[in-house]
């Protein structure tokens, strides 16, 4: 069970060239998954503050949501985002960032996922996301939209 989850999780990130561009990795403790975005200078959006690019935080949260879906269930193909809303709560400082996601509902076609990113303190999130993802269960033969 857990081994299979780790495999699906690693496959999700390893298969995605853009996850390597960001430098993302994931850790799994039991069923609790954390995606880690190690700080790198190319992630900065605003050098004045300096702050991580808001788009990078959005991408981290979106990929965290996809990774969480990958360990929840095996899919026929990678889930695709339908819509996402990102709230920016604090500026992303030039340090490592962590993110976790929670699947609020996993239906036959659509999943609703929330994700949150933080740096020093889990209780001081810097950004959060909620979104819908199109999912294709492995068991279905790809029938229906």
């Amino acid at each position, binding site marked *: 069970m857990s081994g299979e989850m780790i495999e699906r999780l690693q496959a999700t990130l390893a298969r995605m060239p853009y996850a390597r561009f960001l430098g993302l990795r994931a850790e799994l403790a039991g069923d609790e998954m954390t995606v880690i975005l190690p700080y790198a200078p190319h992630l900065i959006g605003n050098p004045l503050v300096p702050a*991580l690019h808001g788009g990078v935080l*959005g991408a981290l949260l979106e990929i965290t949501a996809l990774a969480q879906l990958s360990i929840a269930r095996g899919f026929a193909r990678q889930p695709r985002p339908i819509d996402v809303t990102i709230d920016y709560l604090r500026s992303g400082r030039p340090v490592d960032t962590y993110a976790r996601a929670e699947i609020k509902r996993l239906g036959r076609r659509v999943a609703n996922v929330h994700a949150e990113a933080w740096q020093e303190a889990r209780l001081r999130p810097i950004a959060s996301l909620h979104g819908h993802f199109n999912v294709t269960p492995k068991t279905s033969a790809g029938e229906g939209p």
Partner: protein
Amino acid sequence: MSATPDAPVEPPRGQLIRWSPQAMALGMETVATQFAQATLKVPYRPDLVGDPDRGVIAGGVVTTLLDHACGHAVAMAMAEAGPVATLDLRIDYMRAAEPGLDVHAHAHCYKLTHAIAFVRATAYDRDPSDPVATAQAVFMLTGVGPEPVSDGEAGA
């Protein structure tokens, strides 16, 4: 208006890409700007792919491009350059970007108040009327104080 090379200053209008390491890392380019509007693009690159089965550019790249284009449009709407911060960004993904094509984003800051900017944006590859994604964003102008006359509203 001079500055030491290693001390970043507010970017002049239309220079928001070279100024931003992440925009540079994505290879982002300015296509066009006008008052309150900006069009930017990210050239297709295999290392920016999110779905290797289809060779489709990652949603996160589109997110960053849309966020950047929105910020750029806000800068183009402001009387003088000043810092802005994204409050929220909503993105609707209409379809996958076509593999091999550059992704463009056009953003329009359609309302600017004392401290808040409202922006809409569209991402597309071939045709602006056939969007890859649309976005709605709200920015805070972080360089301004609270509203001069405030009616019991707490300053941010």
